[in-house]
């Protein structure tokens, strides 16, 4: 077993008094790619938001350790600095704030947290340029308002651009593949595969096995009614494809 990066223990959580996560256990080691699949409404996206610290959810019981630190007592920005990154299923649009300004602030906040000097706009532009090329994104991306008027594919690519810049240890991809064409999925996955930092791990939330051609999972979990009901390897995905969730024991 690899060194443990994230450990969820009997987690129970609710929103507006409705319990969505019902005693969930999950262990993720370094250098692992975990896929979580499950029917609509099983709590997959909720799980990703809880891990990132969305304020609307209440934790009722259980624990979450990230590198042996209690994740639940950290603010969302601290979780981010510690190395947790959530690629949103629906990235949020923000008017009047350029992508470039946003990226630079986020990048420098992380550096500040790590006690490193902040980068000036020119230095930052150099780094960003390299990342843009990797993701085959044009420069004008930076000068548009954050996600405003971006197409579905552009928004997702922008999520990965942020990911590359912030160099997280654990990335949660919440349906990164939804609404993307084949080429876009390939570019995004190549971007992820070639740029994850050493010993980092991935959680992929998805409905479609296609993305798993590019990101080879080490673990596959089936989530139903707020907990993991089955864990296996890639063969489990094939089983699912053949028989559906209803026949999972």
């Amino acid at each position, binding site marked *: 077993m690899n060194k443990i990066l994230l450990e969820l223990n009997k987690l129970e959580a609710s929103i507006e008094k409705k319990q969505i996560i019902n005693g969930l256990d999950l262990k993720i080691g370094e250098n692992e790619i975990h896929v979580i699949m499950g029917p609509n409404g099983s709590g997959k996206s909720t799980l990703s938001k809880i891990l990132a*610290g969305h304020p609307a959810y209440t934790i009722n019981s259980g624990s979450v350790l990230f590198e042996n630190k209690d994740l639940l007592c950290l*603010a969302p920005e601290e979780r981010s600095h510690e190395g947790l990154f959530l690629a949103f299923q629906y990235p949020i649009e*923000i008017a*009047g*704030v350029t992508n470039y*300004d946003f990226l630079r602030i986020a990048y420098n*906040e992380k550096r500040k947290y790590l006690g490193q000097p902040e980068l000036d706009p020119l230095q930052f532009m150099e780094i960003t340029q390299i990342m843009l090329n990797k993701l085959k994104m044009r420069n004008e991306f930076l000068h548009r308002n954050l996600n405003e008027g971006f197409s579905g594919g552009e928004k997702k690519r922008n999520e990965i651009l942020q990911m590359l810049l912030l160099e997280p240890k654990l990335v949660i991809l919440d349906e990164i593949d939804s609404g993307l064409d084949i080429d876009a999925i390939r570019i995004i996955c190549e971007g992820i595969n070639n740029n994850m930092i050493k010993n980092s791990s991935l959680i992929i939330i998805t409905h479609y096995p296609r993305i798993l051609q590019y990101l080879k999972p080490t673990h596959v979990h089936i989530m139903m009614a707020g907990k993991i009901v089955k864990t296996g390897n890639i063969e489990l995905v094939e089983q699912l494809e053949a028989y559906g969730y209803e026949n999972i024991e």
Partner: protein
Amino acid sequence: MTEQKNKTNFEINQVINQPYKYGFKTNIEKEIFPIGLNENIIKLIVNKKKEPKFLLNFRLKAYKKWLQTKFPTWANLQINSLDFDKISYYSIPKKKKKLNSLEEVDPEILRTFEKLGISLDEQKKLSNVAVDAVFDSVSIGTTYKEKLAKSGVIFCSISEAIQDYPKLIEKFLGTVVSTGDNFFASLNSAVFTDGSFCYIPQNVICPLELSTYFRINDKDSGQFERTLIVAEKNSSVNYLEGCTAPQYSENQLHAAIVELVAFENANIKYSTVQNWYSGDNKGIGGIYNFVTKRGLCIGKNANISWTQVETGSSITWKYPSCVLVGELSSGEFYSIALTNNYQQADTGTKMIHLGEKTTSKIISKGISCGNSKNSYRGLVKIAANAKSSRNFSQCDSFLLGSSSLACTYPYIDIWNSNSIVEHEATISKISEEQLFYLTQRGITIDQAVGLLINGFCKDVVTMLPMEFATEADKLLSLKLEGSIG
């Protein structure tokens, strides 16, 4: 023990609600008139300032009109009654003779302006801005006068202008805002003691940005300044205005008038960053800011543009307006009004289209936090003769927290059928999802709110001159700190 606890609470509150940075007061020897207002006080002002006869008449006329006018109650403001008999209408730093240069200014006052970040020492000044500093009722000094004089630009305090250029003053004073325009305009016309005067001759592009910095220091005196800017044919000027005041638990009155006159092809751009003391977080104290600002585009193709960032004052009552007389003349109004705690703002503009093919544009951004009340009130009037005129208005409001209030009162009055008037309005709140997204990327809540607000205000901030844009950005984030918990 309890005392200890209270002290801690107090300290936490201090951190959350950043104190007003400019709330200090300056102890100087000053000459102050007895409180209250009557004809004798007005005569005293006129004598003190050795003003010409026409001004005495102007003041007395205004005073009579003031007596006949009632305090306006139509604004969406709750105003503690003001006792006009308890205000002193004249307060000047004591100095025996007329000042010939800045070196003769009381060093204590110079230090005050230094503390405010306004250096009146020309040697030290790097930026290309000429400054007129007004302390309570009197202009303290004007920088770069000689450089401006070379190009024919007159920039001085209005008191000096009354002495040195009485003909210009007599010709233009009160032509845009008459002595009977409104309650506060009448009061100002009766008792104004200083302010700035600026005259740009024909065909001159003013070589420097001009700036006036207003400071109310005295506790019981009102500040009634008067600014008059005249731009002759084909001339152009950029004007900046900044304001601060010490922190007192009493409300202080500020009732100013700004008049702008633009002749054919002239351009006047007037920018304000208003940061008067706004009272404490319980709403005690702060400036009552009742200001009449109006520009007259009298010539063909003249342009007047108002940009304002209103973050201070306990009460703001202010409608910088444009009267578009000249054919093809244009008026613009760009405004950010931010209110927090118990601040109240009723602000907006009037665009009065009288000439043919006149155009106007209004962009107003209101942000309300805490228990504050923020209203936009605007009038677009297109007269029968203002054929083929156009107006575009956009009024956006932003609410932070659940106990603040935003209102929009657009009045539209059109008297011909071939003009086009457009009005857009939005009201928004910060969404939890936006904050979550930004914080997930490592940005703190305070920064995230600042970023969202700056994004919201961007259309207006970009209209400000560079020096002001930076100041406005800083001011907005400072005022917002701790406004979301």
